[in-house]
């Protein structure tokens, strides 16, 4: 399949870039920083700092959950903005876009492959935070059964599965932003502009989500459900918020994917 080979090549380029690894390392630093800080302090008073911070010393797995909570508003959108904003504009900026299209990669195919690459990163990013968090937590603190929000208790293995489920929830959450970044990326030949615009979108959406005056708008904001993964910490798991979030992100993907397609398949490549 030529399309799959192009995707393989795309992922090769993405993950052979030092920038990609620098961003993943920065994300990995969040749980490490949190866990080490908790380890070095005598006791964390409950109710201060990010949620679950006080529970890390009892159960290391919470380092992953806390780190994800911390990363959601800014750090994750920032890295997604860089990768998704770079998709088309980055190739245009380097001048490689004209050679890909002359190969001919096919505009539709290239766009799909570019988006798929961004989504792979959107999966890698939260899973990096979760897995590094679980690892550093297990190294520095005891790991044991976890008491869920519903009051039930689950073993460490299932707790790890829940942790990864939250990471998956975040990966889905970032699909809408990736589609926005892809569209921004088709508008310019300057990758930094597309990256900044994408991050601004994420920030503005979260600010709007915090304003009660805009309540009518809230259900339509792609960031509205970013922190709604508490349902995954109940027994049995309630999938409603997962499904609602996936639907919301799918809507953004459809709209901005179509805009990106319409723009990219008709634009003059003069870079």
């Amino acid at each position: 399949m030529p399309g799959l080979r192009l995707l393989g090549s795309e992922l090769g380029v993405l993950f052979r870039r030092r920038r990609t690894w620098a961003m993943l390392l920065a994300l990995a630093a969040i749980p490490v920083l949190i866990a080490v800080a908790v380890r070095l302090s005598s006791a964390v008073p409950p109710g201060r700092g990010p949620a679950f911070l006080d529970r890390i010393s009892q159960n290391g797995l919470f380092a992953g959950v806390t780190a994800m909570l911390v990363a959601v508003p800014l750090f994750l959108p920032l890295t997604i903005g860089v990768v998704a904003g770079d998709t088309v504009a980055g190739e245009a900026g380097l001048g490689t876009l004209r050679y890909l299209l002359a190969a001919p990669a096919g505009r539709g195919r290239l766009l799909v492959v570019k988006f798929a690459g961004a989504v792979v990163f959107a999966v890698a990013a939260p899973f990096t935070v979760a897995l590094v968090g679980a690892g550093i937590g297990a190294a520095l603190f005891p790991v044991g059964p976890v008491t869920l929000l519903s009051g039930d208790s689950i073993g460490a293995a299932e707790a790890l599965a829940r942790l990864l489920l939250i990471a998956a929830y975040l990966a889905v959450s970032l699909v809408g932003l990736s589609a926005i970044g892809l569209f921004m990326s088709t508008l310019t030949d300057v990758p930094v502009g597309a990256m900044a615009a994408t991050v601004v979108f994420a920030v503005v959406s979260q600010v709007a989500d915090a304003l009660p005056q805009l309540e009518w708008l809230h259900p339509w904001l792609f960031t509205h459900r970013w922190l709604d993964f508490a349902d995954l910490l109940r027994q049995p798991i309630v999938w409603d918020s997962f499904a609602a979030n996936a639907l919301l992100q799918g809507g953004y993907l459809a709209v901005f994917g179509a805009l990106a397609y319409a723009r990219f398949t008709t634009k003059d490549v003069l870079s």
Partner: protein
Amino acid sequence: MTALPPSAELPSAELSIETRGLSKRFGRQMAVDGVDLAVPRGSVFGFLGPNGSGKTTTIRIMLGLAAASSGSVRVLGEEMPRQLRTVLPRVGALVEGPAFYPFLSGAANLLRFDAADPEAPAGTRRARVRTALERVGLAHAADKKVRAYSLGMKQRLGIANALLAPRELLVLDEPTNGLDPQGTREVRHLVRSLAADGATVFVSSHLLAEVEQICTHAAIMSAGRLVAQGPLAELRQAGQSRVRLLTPDAGAAARVMAGLGLTPDGGGISNGGSAGTWGEVLYAPLPAGSAAGAPSPEELVAALVAADVRVRGFAVEQGSLEDRFVELTGEGFDVAQ
């Protein structure tokens, strides 16, 4: 303008590239204006013009990177951009300079571009990349990051990218940019060998000398319009001939020439400091063909001698492509190298 007819109206099947009324408008400006190109199959075609004359825009439209505002393009007999998927795998291109991922090696860059071509067989990819790198003399730098390449090496890598698969048409935009004289010679040799293999080579260049050396055909662009095209020999002939006179009696000579209806062009500095021990050099364009009342060169010499002008050197010079170019575009040409 003295546009030549499209290369003797060859049937479309004999043309590798054919544009009809091709125009491209950017805002109010016509970057390409009613261009009718006819590039015969198997030719080495020089695409000439000063900077900003619309060459690269024309190439971008030919390759489907930009859409024409009006007019049509056929490449290898197929309509572009409709048949882009079947046409472009048979076309190798170097467009507006090479462009690569600086953080990848030369070989990895070529593997990437080759993977973007759905027709390129994956099984032979590595072997084809190696062959292409060898062909441009970059085998030793295959695993070096492109960031560390010199401009000339990037240029060679760009040409290697155009040679990844057997091509029927090569579109090379300024292929010798940034190359040293040795590299330039190698590219000329490469172009000849590609043409010998039966490929059509479409070379855009601002280096006229280069085009004169390797091309069989040429076209000249000026301000978005095609002002001339055809076999190189025809283009040269269409240029004006001139006489070159070496004499210490420049003033008297100029009067004689003027009396015969010629317009001598002052010697000395404007013609490159020719005032030497033997006298000054005067140039005068010869009216084309048998224009009424125009003197033949021998009549001119006889008249000069009769007027006691000491003729120490006299020659009829065939117009060069450069003269032709200046005549058509009213602009100078970079003839460096």
